[in-house]
């Protein structure tokens, strides 16, 4: 018999088994973020030329661990929690096969520990990309494979839950947009994990001697089919979280269900093309293949993101205007709850992802422009904007939302929590922008010593490059402080936060079920469709319901166009290559 409890504050229903899985996955994710953040501090202090903290061998080891821990483990653990939330909680359905979900979780933990053990063993400093024929210890790859299989199980549990919900008619009509988005993320994840298996299993076999040779170019192609698609999971999932938070805080409804869902479908259709971005300066790939693939078939996935970039803030604007905040173009935005970390994290995530991460990503993914950016520190600059300011901040906002709802604890340090998104965003924007700037001066990524001390050939980057790396270092420290604050508040709330329900004890915060008394055997009422009257009203005569958002979108577009052509200009000045 499936047991549920209803959150008295939000009305959300939690299936007991699903609830514990969400907690366990979210906590595991935050632990990985914490480790990743400590490693980030070591990395960024080493790349700050005036400090140059670690020796070379530890730097490469720590950098490998930082990438793996933050990008793979933190992201995917948290995504599992989101899937279970979107499948079970949002649909008011029991979770399909919770035992399998636990098995998946345990595998993910084992895999993560195994890979980290390999890295900290010191003989697997191969970076997360582990390009062959550079060789890590076998359990480096094996851990990743086990982790991926665990995540795959989670994806199937999610799909199973959708089937259960449909069969048991737990909702009316079509699934909510947020669940639709999570489903897109899940489908992309399955493709991604399949690519990962296709490359990591042979590589594991190679590392223990069963396979004699893996083609290095083929490795890069398939590895990036996983590596880039997994960023597409993050995007699909964090866009879903944007819609979720807009819905919870503002009661926003999608401007158009059709447009938002169609945009999501574009992600699915064109995701598998993405691997080309990373291979634009590789040998032997045909021009047609690169053009089609790097642009995801004429930038249709970019189009999708640009659509969400309008419809998410647009939905918020419409909801705010309906509440009477109709003065000028931006009253709705000025009077948004900027002191609520759920909202501020989400909105910074949206703006930062679009302006910093999105624009730089499309520019550097342009076939020829890659020549002046490939493998410079511009690349980490770009993806800290996407995956940290974009995805990580969306997850942080969701965490703030879930602490009282899912964990039934009051958040500690509310004043610090108000500041946290701004501190983190400030620091990470500095990292992103100044790494990008240093990259345009040619500073290499994954590089221990930009000064080339003691090298008989010697080379000096311009003094500006050192300055930029120094400022990025300051930003990194601020970012780590912001990240630490988040971890302290999140974990601290689970331990010390005031209980909103007497059953929510310490162990309960970390995945142990609440006492039975918290639940009932009663099936939740069917999830109703959104109220219809709301819809007619918005499409006012002009149909221009969110003018402020439109202005913001045009600002984005203009910045985009200018920045794009500036880069062509830079490119045109370098040596001729043909």
């Amino acid at each position, binding site marked *: 018999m499936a047991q549920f409890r209803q959150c008295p504050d939000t009305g959300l229903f939690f299936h007991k088994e699903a609830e514990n899985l969400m907690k366990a996955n979210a906590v595991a994710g935050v632990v990985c973020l914490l480790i990743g953040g400590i490693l980030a501090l070591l990395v960024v202090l080493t790349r700050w030329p005036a400090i140059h903290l670690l020796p070379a*061998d530890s730097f*490469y080891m720590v950098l490998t661990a930082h990438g793996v821990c933050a990008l793979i483990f933190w992201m995917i653990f948290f995504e599992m929690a989101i899937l279970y939330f979107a499948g079970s909680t949002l649909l008011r359905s029991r979770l399909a096969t919770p035992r399998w979900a636990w098995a998946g979780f345990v595998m993910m933990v084992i895999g993560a520990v195994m890979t980290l053990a390999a890295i900290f063993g010191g003989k697997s400093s191969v970076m997360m990309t582990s*390009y062959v024929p550079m060789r890590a210890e076998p359990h480096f790859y094996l851990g990743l494979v086990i982790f991926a299989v665990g995540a795959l199980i989670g994806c199937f549990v999610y799909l199973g839950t959708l089937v259960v919900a449909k069969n048991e008619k737990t909702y009316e*009509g*079509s699934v*909510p*947009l947020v669940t639709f988005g999570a489903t897109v993320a899940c489908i992309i994840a399955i493709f991604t994990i399949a690519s990962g298996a296709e490359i990591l299993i042979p590589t594991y076999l190679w590392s223990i001697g069963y396979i004699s040779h893996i083609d*290095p170019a083929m490795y890069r192609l398939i590895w990036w089919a996983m590596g880039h698609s997994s960023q597409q999971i993050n995007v699909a999932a964090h866009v879903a979280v944007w819609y979720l938070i807009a*819905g919870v805080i503002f009661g926003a*409804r*999608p401007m*158009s269900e*059709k*447009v938002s869902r169609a945009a999501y479908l574009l992600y699915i259709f064109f995701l598998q093309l993405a691997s080309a971005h990373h*291979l634009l*300066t*590789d*040998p*032997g*790939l045909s*021009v047609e293949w690169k*053009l089609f693939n790097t*642009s995801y078939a*004429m930038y249709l996935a*970019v*189009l999708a993101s*640009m*659509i969400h970039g*309008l419809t998410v803030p647009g939905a918020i604007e419409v909801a705010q205007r309906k509440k009477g905040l109709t003065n000028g173009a931006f009253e709705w935005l000025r009077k948004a709850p900027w002191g609520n970390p759920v909202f501020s994290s989400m909105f910074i995530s949206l703006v930062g992802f679009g302006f910093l991460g999105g624009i730089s990503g499309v520019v550097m993914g342009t*076939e*020829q422009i*890659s*020549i*002046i950016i*490939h*493998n*410079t520190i511009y690349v980490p600059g770009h993806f800290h904007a996407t995956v940290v300011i974009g995805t990580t901040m969306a997850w942080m906002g969701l965490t703030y939302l879930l602490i009282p709802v899912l964990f039934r604890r009051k958040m500690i340090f509310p004043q610090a929590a108000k500041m946290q998104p701004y501190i983190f965003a400030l620091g990470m924007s500095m990292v992103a922008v100044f790494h990008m700037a240093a990259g*345009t001066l*040619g500073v*290499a990524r*994954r590089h*221990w010593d930009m000064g080339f001390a003691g*090298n008989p*050939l*010697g*080379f000096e980057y311009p003094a500006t490059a050192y300055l930029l790396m120094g400022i990025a270092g300051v930003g990194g420290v601020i970012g780590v402080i912001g990240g630490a604050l988040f971890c302290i508040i999140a974990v601290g709330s689970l331990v010390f936060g005031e209980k909103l329900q007497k059953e929510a004890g310490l162990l309960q915060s970390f995945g142990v079920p609440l006492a039975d008394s918290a639940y009932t055997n009663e099936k939740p009422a069917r*999830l109703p*469709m*959104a109220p219809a009257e709301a819809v007619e009203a918005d499409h006012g005569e002009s*149909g*221009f*319901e969110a003018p402020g958002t*439109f202005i913001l979108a045009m600002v984005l*577009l203009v910045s985009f166009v200018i920045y794009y052509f500036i880069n062509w200009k830079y*490119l045109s000045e*370098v*040596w*001729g*290559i*043909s």
Partner: protein
Amino acid sequence: MTSLLPPAQKNWWAVPVGRQEIIWIAIALVWCLIMFFMMPLWHMYGNQNIPTEAYKVTPAKYQAKVNEMIEKYKVREETAMKIPVVAPPDGADVYLLARLWQWYPMLELKKDVTYRLHLNSIDWNHGFSLQPVNINIQVVPGYEMVLNITPNKAGEYTIVCNEYCGIMHHAMLGKIWVKE
């Protein structure tokens, strides 16, 4: 909380889309197409394009070609390690080899002359990063890539390795001099 609820209409796909979204989608689509067509246009009219010419090659064969070139065109040696410097004739095939942790040999080229630069690694992936112009090319073992390069400014250039290649990655440098 309507983004958390099923759409208000059973047939949500038939609900007309607001004018604002249609305009934005149209603008965004046009921009996407412009960006797309910039790339083939640059292939036609631009001077910086990664060529597709590449051959599979074994380390031994590539090393032999490099040695042959050095024998023919060596002009001097540099540093205590006596790294040869090669001054190839105009338009020649120039073979540059990447290995742990060195770019080999060094080159002396002429401004505004086009050379066929061959790039290959005989061990792991490396990154050809020419500074201060900032030209970056991936070097993948087993694949010999051929680039027609035309230096457009005289000076001393350094090749940095910008693909992580192990513990001495940061020490992997090479030199190219461009003469008037």
